[in-house]
């Protein structure tokens, strides 16, 4: 079962590398959204492995709230370009 998490960690490194080397702000925002979804799915997997409902609920909340924060951030960055 640990193997699943190790593979997910390796996949998580791909958008992390993208966020580090790409200078376009929108590519960074895309990498951020990818990482936010991946980490919350990993929290859900861990909660299932340990049969811990408290972590599971937190994972669901982070999964939904992360998208809201991302949309607000994208709006602010979009309006910067209009200045």
């Amino acid at each position: 079962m640990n193997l699943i998490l190790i593979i997910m960690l390796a996949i998580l490194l791909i958008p992390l590398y993208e966020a580090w080397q790409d200078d376009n702000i929108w590519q960074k925002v895309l990498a951020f959204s990818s990482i936010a979804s991946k980490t919350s799915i990993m929290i859900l997997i861990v909660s299932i492995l340990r049969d811990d409902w408290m972590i599971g609920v937190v994972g669901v909340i982070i999964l939904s709230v992360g998208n809201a924060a991302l949309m607000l951030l994208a709006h602010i960055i979009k309006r910067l370009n209009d200045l």
Partner: protein
Amino acid sequence: MNDSYIYVIAALLPLTSLMLVLQSNPYHALVVRGIVGAVAALVYAVLGAADVALTEALVGTMLAIMLYAVAVRSSLVMRLGVVAESEAVVKAEGDRDLQDILDHLRSIVAKRHLKLELVSYPNEKALQQALIAKEIHATCLKSEIESQPYQTTTRVRHLYDIFQQELTLPVTGLAYLSAED
């Protein structure tokens, strides 16, 4: 707690923090701060602190990014005052000189991650008063000299030093207005 993946997940936190510290552009740092928040929430949840992970996601990622975005957006702006009629002329693409000056100023301040914001005033007197009242950082006015049709005046010492080095257009002069407190 002898799961080996915990060590790998915990190693992500210093890795992303290092990424955040090495960013030079404030807007890029803002996005990377969100990534650090997401990874930190993962680490806290895996280590068993579900409440800390929830707080990190709600406050650390969402609220901190919003406040930081507003702060960066309002402070990293150079406000340039112009007379209203010349701004209308620029929009109509009539005046090449002023357009060139504005493009050149934009490229200079963009190197320092600043944005140029045009503020228009009805006449030259209101423009001068706004500069003294610290509403704007610099003004760009028509001057009487034939070879230099425009005069750029700034009240910020640091901006003046930068422009003296890099504002090489012949169509505008440069002046520094020392603020008397």
